């Protein structure tokens, strides 16, 4: 009634104005896409201080001082700002301004696990990546789309090979020996992830998630803090990635075609020696050794070492092995979808095909996928839905790093080796060389492919019950069938070998969720749910290996003379009881209580069940009277949460049980032996996380700032603790360690410029994380090692490098004082420096040759002896700062998006550099740029020692720790959308053409291939520790594509 009176009053005033003809007013409404009025939007007259905030149903009135043509700037949190010009003559006509929804939004629905919430009702930290952003990514897996788009979420591509693995760290590394990867949930079903490939064959890993077509995804929501993730209980502490696939909507059927094609190349190529240079360097090394010998042992006779390969000098040539093993790859990606629906049913259906060859010769990844999501309104109160995804991928894999291929091409395939002998056969260097070190032969003759067939399906029933209750019953299935086919030719190794290996994973889930959503008191809204869930996953691996084939065309292991079969089985189950209670009082005060009671077969009888609670509170200040309607501050919200989540993934099944194992046979009789000590207390790792966040939006959402502080303490970390060997065992898995991650995330988003003609949107995210090990169960440094000398040491980040320090290179041959260890043994006892037996030093004067490598000992004094007792923790494999800056411009049909990704503060230990920088004795090709400043003549000042074939340079020192910081133009997209009327005249509703480049430019001090790396490791521990280690790790891929997107 009151409103009507006001309206009447306003109309009266307006009409009186008309009557009087002096003052002029603009009246109108601001509405959303669906025509619903938007309350609280800001309407401003450009160039003046005049303006209004919309009232109920979006109505506003602005009184102008004089009638003139005006530009209205309209903005609202959750919508794209709009500008409208109103002609002087039309001022008296009420106008309707429609705002489009936008991702800069606080109004959007966010998937929170077992339901959705409006963003402004959240008490936890959730990042969202939407369909548009996912589609902008041209890489084959959806995880790549998250990179740079979710603050605090570090996405690491292991390399740029097609179909290769990814790693995601949500707010820092979350485990030491168990999985550090988040839980992936697709349409409510936690799915099988990771590498199912044969272990350690090619130095790369496969990615089970690559079977999902990113084009089918509507949104990716990443649950980051305990308030958000506690609903996933014992599997939530590494964060949860919730993937929601596209749904149909009522209305006419729309078809959408997205097609792009382009090239894939490496981001960088390192500079290696050619054959002549290598041989010249070899001669230099011999010369240096002879000089050294003449000084140190003048009476000895020097014998020059021959070039590796023991080959006929007439065959010496210049082969660029990288050129022979690398290529320009091609990417083709096509997706077609149809979506629509009626009041009875809605559907989304799609087909996708991707064919990608990478920069590595022989590497190709193909995916065919189809998805159908249908929802039927069976009755007024019952909805039935089915989501089905079928996919097939074929990944033709090639070796890299230490396994050969481009790894061999940059290391053991020396540049003076020819590819072929004069008779046309493959050149194979003589001992101590192995045939695999002709990478061209290896790539041409061997094959290794993985195929997977996958069915992801879920069925659900949604029943609307009386009294604002609803019940959802769901069954989900993830059937994963993975096949390895490997053939190693007799050309490459002494006998042909083939292996077929099949992995089948059956993963199913059922749950029932009862929800309630209503006001329970005036002003008090309650949304609550209770759910039960059961999940079970079983894995069966069977394989057959064969050696010695009668013919090179017979490649099935069955055809082999010697055959060997094997099998493996494992499985786990979870049973969970879930509840969440969210209260909202007057839209100002929010309280969220959630918890999950989880039981897991992975854990011991005494710890099988665990409870994971979280509490979150929020205060929306901008809904208070003193800020409501404020023209500058559109949103101000403070929230805090605390809770406990667990990590039960990446832990082998059955570990809590004491068991006997078969295979202890004697004299033809089968026997059994004890395999594992029982630990009935074995349980999940546990993370207690505090999150404090402030969110603010200004000028109707034109600028938004979100700042989060978090502290995560992870305890009960699983470690293999040594037990006295006289027990008959060497270690027992126990929950003992702890570490913490603390950090800050800042997101600044805004529209610096918005006008009808030109919009500029900018998004800046900065995430800081500090990781520190608090307790490693007093294990000695070498007890838990990762790749490339990474360790877990108290007071240092997880995976810090434990390494000797170089004290530079002696400039002139001279007698100097060095400090030596009295009783050194080159072994490590206890924590470095703990055991005094190894730390009695004495000074001595010795002759040090010019060009010799010197070291610092534990005392920080110069020594000439390389001793493992002098190792110290150095460096951090994880960045201390990382984030992105994304600028999006739209103007007259064009859209330009440029995303810059950056990370600072991390170091990379290049484990191969010790063999590639001035170490010819390794028989590796050398890095030309890094080797050239080597010591060559008396008086040279450098940190690269003289070349030698007798000195042991195959040692780890901090010379090979490099700054891993980089800034990268991660994505640049330029698109043009045809005006709607032209498109429609061509029978389309939408036509957009675009070009996208990914990883176009990189700025870094890292001298290797590419600073974005993850060394090949199939264990969770290697992944947690190895984020900063490279060993001939292949570079990232640069993709450049042109594409077209058609809707009709």
């Amino acid at each position, binding site marked *: 009634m009151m409103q009507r009176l006001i309206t009447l009053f306003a109309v009266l005033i307006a009409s009186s104005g008309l009557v009087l003809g002096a003052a002029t007013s603009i009246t109108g409404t601001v509405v959303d896409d669906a025509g619903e009025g938007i309350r609280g939007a800001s309407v401003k007259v450009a160039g003046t201080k005049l303006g209004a905030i919309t009232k109920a149903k979006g109505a506003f009135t602005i009184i102008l001082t004089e009638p003139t043509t005006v530009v209205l700037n309209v903005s609202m949190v959750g919508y794209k700002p709009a500008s409208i010009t109103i002609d002087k003559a039309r001022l008296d006509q009420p106008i309707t301004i429609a705002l489009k929804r936008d991702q800069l939004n606080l109004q959007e629905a966010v998937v929170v696990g077992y339901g959705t919430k409006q963003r402004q009702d959240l008490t936890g930290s959730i990042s969202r990546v939407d369909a548009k952003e996912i589609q902008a990514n041209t890489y084959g897996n959806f995880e790549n789309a998250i990179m740079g788009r979710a603050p605090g979420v570090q996405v690491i591509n292991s390399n740029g090979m097609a179909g290769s693995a990814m790693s995601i760290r949500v707010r820092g590394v979350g485990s030491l020996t168990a999985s550090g990867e988040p839980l992936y949930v697709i349409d409510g079903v936690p799915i099988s992830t990771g590498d199912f490939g044969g272990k350690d064959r090619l130095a790369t890993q496969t990615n089970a998630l690559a079977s999902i077509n990113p084009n089918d995804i509507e949104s990716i929501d990443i649950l980051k803090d305990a308030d958000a993730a506690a609903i996933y209980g014992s599997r939530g502490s590494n964060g949860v990635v919730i993937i929601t696939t596209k749904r149909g909507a009522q209305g006419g059927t729309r078809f959408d075609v997205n097609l792009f094609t382009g090239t894939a190349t490496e981001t960088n190529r390192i500079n290696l020696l050619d054959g002549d240079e290598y041989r010249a360097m070899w001669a230099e090394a011999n010369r240096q050794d002879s000089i050294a010998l003449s000084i140190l042992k003048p009476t000895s006779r020097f014998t020059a070492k021959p070039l590796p390969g023991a080959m006929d000098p007439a065959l010496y040539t210049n082969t660029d092995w990288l050129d022979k093993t690398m290529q320009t790859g091609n990417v083709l990606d096509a997706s077609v979808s149809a979506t629509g629906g009626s009041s009875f049913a809605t559907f989304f259906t799609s087909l996708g095909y991707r064919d990608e060859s990478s920069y590595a010769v022989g590497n190709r990844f193909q995916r065919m996928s189809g998805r159908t999501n249908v929802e039927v309104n069976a009755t007024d109160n019952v909805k039935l839905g089915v989501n089905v995804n079928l996919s097939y991928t074929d990944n033709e894999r090639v070796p890299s790093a230490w396994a050969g291929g481009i790894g061999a091409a940059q290391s053991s395939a020396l540049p003076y080796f020819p590819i072929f002998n004069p008779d046309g056969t493959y050149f194979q260097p003589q001992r101590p060389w192995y045939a695999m070190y002709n990478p061209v032969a290896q790539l041409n003759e061997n094959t290794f492919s993985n195929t997977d067939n996958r069915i992801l399906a879920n069925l659900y029933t949604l029943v609307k*019950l*009386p*009294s604002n*209750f609803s*019940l959802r019953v769901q069954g989900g299935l993830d059937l994963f069938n993975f096949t390895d086919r490997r053939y190693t030719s007799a050309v490459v190794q002494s006998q042909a070998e083939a292996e077929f290996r099949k992995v089948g994973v059956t993963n199913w889930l059922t749950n*029932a969720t*009862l929800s309630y959503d209503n006001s329970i008191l005036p002003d008090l809204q309650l949304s609550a749910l*209770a759910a*039960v869930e*059961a999940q*079970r996953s079983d894995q069966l691996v069977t394989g057959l290996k064969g050696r010695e084939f009668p013919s090179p065309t017979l490649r099935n292991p069955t055809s082999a003379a010697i055959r060997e079969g094997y099998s493996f*089985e*494992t*499985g*786990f*189950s*979870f*049973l969970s*009881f879930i509840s969440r209670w969210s209260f909202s009082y007057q839209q100002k005060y929010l309280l969220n209580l959630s918890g999950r009671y989880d*039981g*897991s*077969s992975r854990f011991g009888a005494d710890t*099988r069940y665990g409870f994971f609670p979280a509490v979150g509170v929020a205060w929306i200040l901008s809904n208070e009277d003193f800020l409501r309607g404020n023209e500058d501050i559109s949103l101000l919200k403070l929230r805090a949460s605390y809770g406990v989540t667990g990590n039960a993934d990446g832990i082998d*099944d*059955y570990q809590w*049980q*004491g*068991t*006997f*194992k*078969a295979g*202890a*046979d*004697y*004299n*033809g*009789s*089968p*026997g*059994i*032996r*004890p*395999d*594992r*000590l*029982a*630990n009935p207390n074995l349980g999940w790792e546990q993370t207690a996380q505090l999150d404090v966040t402030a969110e603010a939006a200004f000028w109707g959402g034109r600028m938004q700032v979100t700042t989060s502080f978090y502290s995560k303490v992870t305890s009960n970390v699983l470690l293999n603790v040594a*037990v*006295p*060997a*006289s*027990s*008959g*065992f*060497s270690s*027992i898995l*126990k929950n003992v360690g702890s570490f913490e991650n603390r950090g800050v995330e800042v997101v600044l988003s805004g529209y610096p410029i918005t006008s009808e003609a030109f919009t500029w949107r900018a998004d800046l995210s900065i995430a800081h994380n500090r990781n520190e090990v608090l307790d490693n169960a007093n294990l000695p440094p070498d007890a838990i090692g990762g790749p490339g000398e990474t360790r877990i040491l108290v007071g240092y980040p997880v995976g810090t490098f434990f390494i000797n320090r170089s004290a530079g290179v002696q400039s002139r041959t001279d007698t100097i004082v060095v400090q030596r260890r009295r009783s050194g*043994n080159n*072994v490590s*006892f206890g924590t470095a420096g703990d055991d005094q037996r190894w730390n009695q030093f004495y000074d001595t004067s010795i002759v040090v040759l010019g060009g010799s490598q010197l070291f610092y000992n534990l005392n920080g004094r110069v020594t000439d002896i390389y001793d493992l007792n002098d190792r110290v923790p150095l460096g951090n494999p994880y960045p201390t700062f990382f984030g992105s800056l994304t600028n999006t411009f739209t103007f007259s049909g064009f859209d330009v998006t440029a995303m810059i990704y950056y990370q600072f503060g991390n170091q990379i230990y290049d484990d191969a550099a010790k063999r590639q920088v001035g170490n010819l004795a390794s028989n590796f090709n050398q890095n030309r740029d890094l080797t050239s400043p080597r010591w060559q003549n008396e008086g040279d000042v450098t940190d690269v020692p003289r070349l030698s074939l007798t000195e042991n340079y195959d040692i780890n020192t901090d010379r090979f720790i490099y700054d891993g910081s980089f800034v990268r133009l991660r994505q640049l997209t330029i698109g043009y959308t045809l005006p709607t009327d032209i498109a429609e005249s061509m029978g389309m509703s939408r036509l957009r053409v675009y070009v996208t480049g990914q990883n176009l430019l990189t700025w870094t001090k890292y001298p290797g291939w590419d600073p974005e790396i993850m060394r090949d490791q199939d264990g969770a521990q290697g992944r947690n520790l190895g984020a900063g280690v490279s060993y001939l790790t292949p570079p990232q891929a640069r993709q450049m594509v042109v594409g077209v997107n058609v809707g009709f």
Partner: protein
Amino acid sequence: MNTKHIAVIFTALLSVFTMGCESFLKTDPPLDISNEIALSTPAGIGAALVGAADGMQSGALFGGNTISIGELWSNNVEASVGADFGRLQIISYNLNIFNPEGRALWQDGYGVINRVNNVLAACENVTFEDPALKQRYRGRALAMRGMTMFQLCTYFAQPWGFTSDNSHPGIVIRTEPTLGDAGTRKARATLKECYEQIVADLTAAAELLPPTDAPFMGALATKAYLARVCFHMGDVVRAEALTTEVINSGAYRLNQDVTSVVSTNSTRKSSGRSSTRRSITQLRLLGTSARQMVQHHGTGLARISSMPFTRTQLISVWHCMTTVTIASMSRSGSASS
């Protein structure tokens, strides 16, 4: 339908769901047997005994290193420059914790002892229909424990007589199976206590076992081994008595000539080097373990030896050992090799 109904329905659903939840979460490992089930039957105990014997034939133990390390230390063989670092450390008497041979000798030795202890504990808990079988199992287990403990004592403790009352540290005496973390820590006993345990084990085994029990040690083989222990303890009278008993039993034939345990030519090809393999070929008599030893030596001892065994050296070392080991393991061994 009102709230109450909904609550009832949901509760019903929940209880259906929860039913059998314990069994849902209890999964048995498909590739392993839990401790409780593994040793719950005489057949299971028998399999565990086989597993213990398998532990003994490990290359780190009686299948190789208990012999080769002694040879290295007694300078009967030398390691070449190309040998792996473990053996290089052994010959220089400079072992660190990373030494694979030293570590494995200790670990695998106690692995066998733990396997045996599991058998002995299970024998007390399981009902045997055939009491003779239980006796035999206990006898086999005790014989293996005594033999293994003795080997570990010779390698990891100062010898008998190092202190006048032998109160110097011996090894850890383990007579109970280790099942969980709780039982993993135990201190070293004195050497005297160790030898008492060894003698008790072998004596009890000899009483429980039939004269021969191939492919396990029978009472005679056990006595032969006990004789060796007595010899080490300086009890030559008992050693002589036990050896005489074995010789007079007629179950075993003495070699005509001490040198006949040494073959002078080698037909086995391995790693392209076969010149210094005289001793090893003969040891194939040991059957499975001997083959393993040959393999082991293929990568270790034989390859590193730059000096052939001299007959006398070899015989002096092997004299007692071969008699006993051949006696204990020969029958099926020679059949299978």
